[in-house]
């Protein structure tokens, strides 16, 4: 390990000194780094010097056990502005990958993609579109997908047209001490099992964080997500996701945290404040994505001619325990694009509540009250509304006491690299 590290470090030194000496073209730098990534042996540590390096093609790594390390997320910058080929900035398909202290800017598509890796560490990485919120930015800044044992910490994501820090179809995940701002969604935890999201700041996004399952993806059944000790504040940046990004385009501007089509979620000790549509949004897939899409996909003619409905998918939300949060100032100015939000706000006298629940329950759960086990406890003076989506809002419930209950605390996620 130490031997290979020395050798590679010398290589890096040689390259950096030649960089300093003869001012190589951006193409030379691009070539050296890509060659290093291709030729790296397992165990290699590739050190990058300070500086802003331009790349016009995706950089990629497929060798296991490689560490890519810069001198700081503001000091070592991989810039993909004007990218000519490839849809990602850095694309990694390898196990035991670590990236530290690097900034990734202005990629055509996603900033950092890690696909199918086990034991991955993303630490002090900044992925950003420097022009700020813009529909032509890439969808995801930090995009690990199909990973196992994943740690993302002390990182920054800005400007993503879908999610700043996204984790999808993964298991055993820790996201901590990160900052996501000026993205459409700050964080997304999608179709993922066993995730701890804590000590993060989510602010000035369209929505702070989404925890949910979607159909038609290979991995289904995401569950067991803890969201705690986060600051989810002032997420009111107008939604700038293009329509083609699908449901995210319809995420209400001013959403704090939304939980959709998932079970076993624990939300506690967060500060969730001043998100103008709603601070906490608990919903069925139909409420979030809309009936029409699902009905089209499920219609007999569609099923006959086209892909069948995803039978593995379950759209209900259940067993969500929201407790000991500071929740306030939500719903002051609901997204004017979303008619149903406007209607509800009007009915409530202009504002929406801090916590909004669609009240959709599976008849299979039986007739007892709160069969979805949505439990709200010790959330200060937060206001609540179950808007009774099943009956066209005929029997709304505003008394949060009807949902005063507790669930067993979920266990912490344990991954080797986050001790």
């Amino acid at each position, binding site marked *: 390990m130490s031997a290979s590290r020395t050798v590679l470090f010398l290589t890096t030194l040689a390259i950096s000194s030649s960089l300093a000496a003869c001012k190589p073209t951006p193409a030379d730098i691009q070539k050296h780094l890509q060659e290093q990534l291709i030729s790296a042996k397992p165990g290699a540590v590739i050190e990058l010097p300070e500086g802003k390096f331009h790349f016009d093609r995706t950089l990629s790594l497929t060798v296991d056990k490689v560490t890519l390390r810069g001198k700081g997320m503001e000091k070592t910058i991989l810039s993909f502005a004007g990218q000519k080929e490839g849809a990602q900035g850095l694309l990694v398909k390898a196990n035991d990958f670590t990236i530290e202290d690097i900034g990734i800017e202005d990629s*055509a598509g996603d900033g950092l993609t890690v696909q199918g890796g086990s034991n991955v560490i993303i630490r002090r990485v900044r992925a950003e579109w420097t022009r700020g919120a813009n529909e032509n930015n890439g969808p995801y800044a930090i995009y690990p997908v199909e990973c196992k044992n994943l740690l993302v910490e002390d990182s920054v994501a800005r400007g993503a047209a879908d999610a700043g820090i996204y984790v999808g179809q993964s298991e055993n995940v820790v996201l901590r001490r990160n900052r996501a701002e000026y993205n459409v969604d700050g964080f997304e935890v999608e179709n993922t099992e066993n995730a701890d999201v804590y000590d993060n700041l989510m602010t000035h996004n369209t929505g702070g964080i989404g925890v949910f399952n979607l159909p038609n993806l290979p991995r289904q059944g995401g569950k067991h997500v803890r969201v705690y000790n986060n600051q989810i504040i002032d997420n009111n940046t107008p939604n700038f996701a293009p329509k083609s990004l*699908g449901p995210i385009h319809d995420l209400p501007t001013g959403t704090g945290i939304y939980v959709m089509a998932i079970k076993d979620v624990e939300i506690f000790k967060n500060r969730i404040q001043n998100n103008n549509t709603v601070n906490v949004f608990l919903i069925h897939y139909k409420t979030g994505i809309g009936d029409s899409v699902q009905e089209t996909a499920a219609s007999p003619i569609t099923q006959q001619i086209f*892909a069948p409905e995803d039978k593995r998918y379950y759209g209900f939300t259940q067993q969500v325990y929201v407790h000991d949060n500071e929740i306030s100032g939500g719903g002051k100015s609901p997204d004017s694009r979303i008619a149903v939000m406007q209607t509800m706000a009007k009915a409530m006298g202009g504002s929406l509540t801090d916590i909004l629940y669609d009240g959709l329950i599976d008849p299979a759960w039986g007739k007892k009250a709160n069969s979805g086990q949505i439990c709200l406890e010790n959330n200060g003076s937060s206001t609540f509304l179950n808007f009774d989506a099943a009956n066209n809002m005929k029997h709304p419930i505003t008394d949060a006491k009807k949902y005063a209950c507790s669930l067993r605390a979920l266990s912490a996620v344990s991954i080797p690299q986050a001790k």
Partner: protein
Amino acid sequence: MKSFRHLWLPLALALGSCGSAQKEVKVFLSEPFPQKLSAWHLYTETRKGLKPNNRVIPYSLRTPLFSDYASKYRFVWMREGTSAQYRDDGVFEFPVGTILSKSFAFPSGNSEKLIETRLLVRTRAGWAALPYIWNDSQTEATLQLVPDPVPVKWTDADGRHDFTYQIPNVNECRECHDNNKTLLPIGPKARNLGKELVALWTRVGYLKGAPNDFAEVAVWNKPETGSLDERALAYLDNNCAHCHQPGGTAGYTGVDFRYGHFQPGYCKHPNSAGNMRDLRFDIVPGNPDQSILVYRLASVAPKVMMPQIGRASVHAEGVTLIRQWVSSKSLSSCQ
């Protein structure tokens, strides 16, 4: 396309009959791989087209991947006494020592110029992908992990072609050739080689276990070989399915373009597309203008285009085929 493929075919088929002092093909089964393509002795002449060495046999695919209108010259070689095992679905099981070579050439004057030759070599540790880049005088090609882009220009009946051809680097090879982190060939499947080539490979001893009859894919641009549906499915199989299948680079999208496993995303929201104007669904049956599939095929913008790598120009004829196919489906809206 001007083709010099057939020029050397009779010679190539005279397998093993050559009694000259010609060096035989040499295969390298582990790193370091030779820096020069000539070290493999795959060709005996390169300046006026590739003349294959003994037992190096050319093949073609019924419906190939589009690569900027490049002419592609494919050859296969195996060690004496070894042969591939036939498989009905997917690529054959090739023996250690197999070399698949694919050379890319573009029109130049009245002839063609070789740009790159990609070798896929079945080593003891699995397949290795090796890109060799040709020199100007077409006498030698050199292994380059990260080749430089090459500007290409020519004019033909369809007009002027002028773009920068991006030669994939070693990792980019993997983006298409990877399944569950294993590098695999893509082209040599029974259905895409067709019956004639399968019979030929069997005859020369390169293939065992082939049945007398099996299903071929249609030739994408020959209506006499299949219906619109069959030709479109063949096109999508060979231009999209290497990534869009379980275990492939785009397996996580849930879209599967493999022939016989077809799940193309009718009325499906894309899960990680970029800005596709105001389009919302992968395919809106009956409405190509509202289908992201068509939009992506017709684009050369890095985050919009599909495939993501390997082309810098639009395959106009392919787009026309897929447009017709989407139009032929009923339903005209997904919501």
